[in-house]
């Protein structure tokens, strides 16, 4: 493997196909994606490949991104909402090298956004695709560990246990104690794990203009929410779904409508809150990313 200067003047690895995966593999993944789009929220098994990054670090999302990426695409990669977290940097650099595509940190400028644990604050458009990295695709997994069983439960729409679990939370804590990876029902049919995004982001899944794809590399499953699909977070009439809120606003940009990360500033209990979405924060501050 050698470094070469590609047509755009960037550095790229030669000896590998465009976007790393061979075309046969991409075709296999695209077929699975088409099935996923046709059955919103349904987990489609696919022949996941080893990627040169560890399982659990976004290999599912990377395989999906690699399969849909074209030479004209503009790629953004975020982790925890930020473009500059180490793994986001690593994945972005990977695609710069093996695909030579243009990358950006601007949500608005990107055509493909690969994400871990967040949905950008800026509403997405129908020209964009959001690719989620998924650790455990099965929302019922922690209730029923066997894949054989959970597949039957999905087929029979046997989701009572999920409501029982949420009810037990309320009985014990007075609240539903699931704060991220909060289960949703897609198009009134499949219960789906939206990946470990905070439940703050769940409402953004509903009737979103963008295509949302979910890839779980280790578990070899992918699923999708097509544009304008109804996505409802599970709840009860007397305990309606609600999202996190903060008393504070972002200490950097002053935004009060974004998801905030807590940053410890000293050892005296000092702390501040800042936007988890770094691009959103910069836009609010009027900076150019």
């Amino acid at each position: 493997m050698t470094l070469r200067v590609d047509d755009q003047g960037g550095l790229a690895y030669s000896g590998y196909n465009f976007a790393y995966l061979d075309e046969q593999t991409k075709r296999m993944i695209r077929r699975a994606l088409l099935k996923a789009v046709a059955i919103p929220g349904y987990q489609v098994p696919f022949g996941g490949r080893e990627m040169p990054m560890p399982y659990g670090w976004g290999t599912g999302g990377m395989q999906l991104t690699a399969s849909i990426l074209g030479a004209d695409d503009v790629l953004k990669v975020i982790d925890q909402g930020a473009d500059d977290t180490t793994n986001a940097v690593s994945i972005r650099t990977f695609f710069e090298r093996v695909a030579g595509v243009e990358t950006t940190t601007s949500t608005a400028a990107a055509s493909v956004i690969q994400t871990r644990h967040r949905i950008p604050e800026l509403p997405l458009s129908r020209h964009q695709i959001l690719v989620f990295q998924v650790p455990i695709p099965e929302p019922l997994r922690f209730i029923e560990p066997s894949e054989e069983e959970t597949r039957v439960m999905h087929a029979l729409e046997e989701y009572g246990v999920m409501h029982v679990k949420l009810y037990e939370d309320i009985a014990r804590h007075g609240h539903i104690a699931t704060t991220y990876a909060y289960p949703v029902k897609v198009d009134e049919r499949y219960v789906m794990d939206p990946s470990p995004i905070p439940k703050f982001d769940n409402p953004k899944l509903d009737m979103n203009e963008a295509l949302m794809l979910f890839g779980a590399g280790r578990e070899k499953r992918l699923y999708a929410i097509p544009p304008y699909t109804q996505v409802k977070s599970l709840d009860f009439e007397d305990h309606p779904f609600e999202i996190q809120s903060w008393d504070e606003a972002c200490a950097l940009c002053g935004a009060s409508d974004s998801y905030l990360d807590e940053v410890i500033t000293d050892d005296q209990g000092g702390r501040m809150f800042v936007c988890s979405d770094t691009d959103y924060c910069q836009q609010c501050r009027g900076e150019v990313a």
Partner: protein
Amino acid sequence: MYVAVKGGEQAIANAHRWMADRRRGDRHQPELQTEQIRDQLGLAVDRVMAEASLMDVELAALALKQASGDLTEAVFLLRAYRTTLPRLADSVPLKTEAMHVERRISAAFKDVPGGQVLGPTYDYTHRLLDFMLLAEGEIPDPERAQAGLEACPQILDSLDAEGLIEKELDDGTEPYDITRDPPDFPVDRATRLQMLARGDEGYLLALGYSTQRGYGRNHPFAGEIRQGTVEVEIEVEGFDAPLCIGEVMISECQMINQFGGSREKSPQFTRGYGLAFGRNERKTMAMALIDRSLRAEELGEPVQGPAQQAEFVLAHADNVEASGFVSHLKLPHYVDFQSELELLRRLRREHDLREPSEQERPV
């Protein structure tokens, strides 16, 4: 003032540079050559090849060097490389009965046609550190039997002739390929064996051991363990017989286990099977124990021990998957953690409103 952490790219590059320096170590020492690893750390090379599912001693040695001897990391490197290789042909099934045997033992029979051959082994060595190896010394050439081995029939076949052991017949089904398609539980035995063959040796060893200690006991005898080279053959258009494209060193273990049988069928010994690239005897023995324990349901035995639960055993056997998911806990999780913090603070606030705090409570 908090500033968002920038420059991750530079930090990553520097970290890798530091790691490379660590790997090289003291520059006064000669650099380790991959040929030395290949020839002198052969069992490590074999283990990496088996768990990576790629037979290539040069590349496995390179992976070990690059990983500073971390076997799991080396397996990962080789596995990731394997994925990029095109599939040119499928071999016909290996004929292990035609193996050029280097080692072959049976614990079930004192003597067997073809003989018992100890071969190169650490068995029966006294595990005393050999301080002579600290100094450079000449190692004498091996003493080997002059006569080549006769044909070496599979020992279990001799039981087969009498009907004492269950028959294993190729029903001609195209095996499922776990490297191309995701395993779909419940999986058949051929698929299970594929998954075990690339499974982590330590994991298989522990689970195999658990069956010996009573968690799904099935009373094994080491019917035959053999090591040696077998020819790999492929079918080529225009040729009647398959063509040999080379030889691979493999280890094979066949366990003889306690009886199955029913009112209709007379009792027979059952089998457990293990196979791996290279000299991986410990792994193939553990694999054979687990193969047998995973047949519990098929053979009408109660499923009680962890090693009998196929989905549990197989879904966690791959160390590339396992180490990836465990190590991903190092990645930032502060968005999720923030969610938990927010909820926990709320729950504690509400709890304090309901109940007087512990300090205020009368003693």
